[in-house]
């Protein structure tokens, strides 16, 4: 019997400060045991439990992409007991990763469709994973147009900024970066994400799906915009968060109605969410 | 604390001004002497979990 509570041992291979206020760091992990990386096969949109002995576990979206090999990457906001400890760890430290957990963005349905991604703040992690996956030469043909609206408070709060700028130069993806207020040397949009989405977003039709991931306030203002653009509730895909412990649907706390965010989610369509109590 | 079963004298209170160095030394000596005489309080040490989790509640 495979014990789903035992994490794969990993070593921290790289730590990068991800935002100017140092509240987010990006960690790259390599697996200690041969074969574990294959067992950890994941899809963009899934999450994992970062497991620190003596401190506990924390569910974090996987920021690396299935097409990137040799490591897994997570960008972590310093908030509670486990993440604060993680922020103080060093390259070379040993810890555990348990996963991949949860479902993923519905790649089988998304194939052949136009994709509109709206991200905000530090919830861009699994969206990065998705973009890297779609832009991979082996996959790019499977999707139609790709539009990305990504907003943060300031330029320095945008995650993966170098990559964002690289993507901006490509012609097979439309990047719409935005910050809340004017800043020097900023050549992109200024304004709240949902407002920019309304201006630049592709119209919703059968062939276009929207994926939104961000703080609750952004989601709140994004949904009416998407509706206005013509997206139906089945074509709006959201990724939810709740307090989790086991990550495998057993410990019982993360449910919204009969769905468990850790196992039946975290990815839900708006149509699905509308069927459940909003307990997230 | 005494009521819950901590020995009298294990907890002591003193009021010492920063100028009263002699009193401070005397009190510290006195306290260490009494506590040493009492020996370690095992009751306060949390036993490792393996020993305390009974197999059937």
């Amino acid at each position, binding site marked *: 019997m495979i014990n789903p509570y035992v994490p794969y041992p990993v070593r921290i291979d790289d730590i990068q400060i991800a935002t100017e206020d140092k509240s987010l760091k990006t960690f790259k992990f390599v697996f200690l045991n041969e074969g574990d990386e294959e067992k950890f096969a994941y899809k963009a949109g899934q999450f994992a439990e970062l497991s620190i002995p003596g401190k506990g576990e924390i569910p974090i979206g996987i920021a690396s992409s299935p097409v990137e090999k040799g490591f897994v990457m997570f960008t972590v906001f310093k908030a509670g007991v486990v993440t604060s400890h993680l922020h103080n760890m060093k390259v070379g430290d040993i810890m555990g990763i348990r996963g991949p957990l949860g479902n993923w963005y519905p790649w089988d349905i998304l194939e052949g469709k136009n994709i509109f991604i709206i991200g905000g703040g530090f919830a861009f992690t699994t969206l990065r994973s998705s973009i890297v996956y779609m832009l991979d030469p082996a996959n790019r043909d499977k999707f139609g147009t790709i539009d990305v609206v990504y907003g943060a408070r300031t330029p320095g709060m945008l995650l993966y900024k170098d990559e964002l700028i690289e993507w901006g130069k490509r012609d097979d993806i439309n990047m719409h970066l935005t910050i809340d207020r004017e800043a020097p040397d900023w050549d992109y949009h200024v304004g709240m994400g949902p407002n920019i989405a309304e201006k630049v977003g592709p119209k919703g039709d059968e062939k276009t799906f929207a994926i939104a991931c961000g703080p609750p306030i952004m989601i709140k203002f994004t949904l009416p915009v998407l509706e206005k653009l013509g997206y139906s509730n089945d074509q709006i895909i959201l990724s939810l968060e709740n307090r989790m412990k086991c990550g495998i649907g057993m410990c019982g706390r993360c449910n919204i109605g009969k769905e468990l965010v850790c196992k039946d989610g975290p990815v839900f369509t708006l149509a699905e969410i509308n069927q459940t109590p909003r307990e997230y | 604390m005494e*009521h819950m079963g901590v020995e009298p004298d294990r907890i*002591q209170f003193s009021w010492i001004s920063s100028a009263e160095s002699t009193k401070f030394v005397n009190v510290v000596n006195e306290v260490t002497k009494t506590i040493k005489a009492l020996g370690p309080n095992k009751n306060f040490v949390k036993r490792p979990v393996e020993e305390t989790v009974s197999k059937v509640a």
Partner: protein
Amino acid sequence: MLEYINKIKEISTKLLEEKKVDMIVGFRKGSLPMMNEPCFAKNTEDIQSFVWDSNCGINLANYLTNRKEKIGIVAKGCDSRNIVTHIIENKINRDQLTIIGVPCKGMIDRKMISDMFDSEITEVTENNGKITVKGNGFDKTLEKTEVLQENCAICIHRNPVIYDELVAKEVEEQKDVDRYEDVRNIEAMSPEDKWKTFDDLLKTCIRCYACRNACPLCYCPTCFVDEAKPQWVGKSQDPTDTRTFHFLRAFHCAGRCTDCGACVRACPMGINVRAFTKKLEKDCFELFNWEAGLSIEERPPLDTFKPGDPDEFIK
């Protein structure tokens, strides 16, 4: 009892009709013998389910914490003292409240009565200080005074200390009760025996926190046992952690506890939780001549300093 109930209903109806309050907090009949459920009434129809008898042991002051409405509340002696404490500690405003005082002759001890019989009790009625207990194959009448909750048996504040309406004439207060015999018994023990007494007491604790949650004093937004940064107390069944919880909780109630017995009544495992709080209650009385919740004018001993406060413990 019927006069009490009618009077409670009458006052409640008047308060709601005159729009003096938004809701009334009281008791309704429970689904089991010797159980009543705290409830609220927002209209005269709801009021019809109000009851009063010797099974209203839950402390209703617990239901006032941080409420914003204007509330009418049914209060026996101990409830009223906890209401006073709530007012002193800014958990509710005096002018939000209309207190319907109920002079009380004590609540009966459900667990004690259940333990007196081998099979299940199906019906309990009371009349004129007699409690009639019926079950499969038995039918017995008990003196109410003999089956009171332990804290009620030694209560010296049966009448509400603060009220706007009173449902009946004040009852006679008990005199010459020995309130602290149990505490003295423990005080006389050796440290080892004390430790063992409390260890045995807590053996069956499942850490459901019913005692804490039933207590009107335990309203902290985050209880110390629930803190994660730092985590003061472990969460398992470890005896050290369980003990830490109970003793620290008792300390937090020092000078505030009215010995209402809600903790004991709530405990599903029948633990005498009062054994922890009682010592502090006794100390407050003996050292500071203080009994909690008697007046909204006076500050409790632990947040005031008087030059004459006892300080023999300081060397």
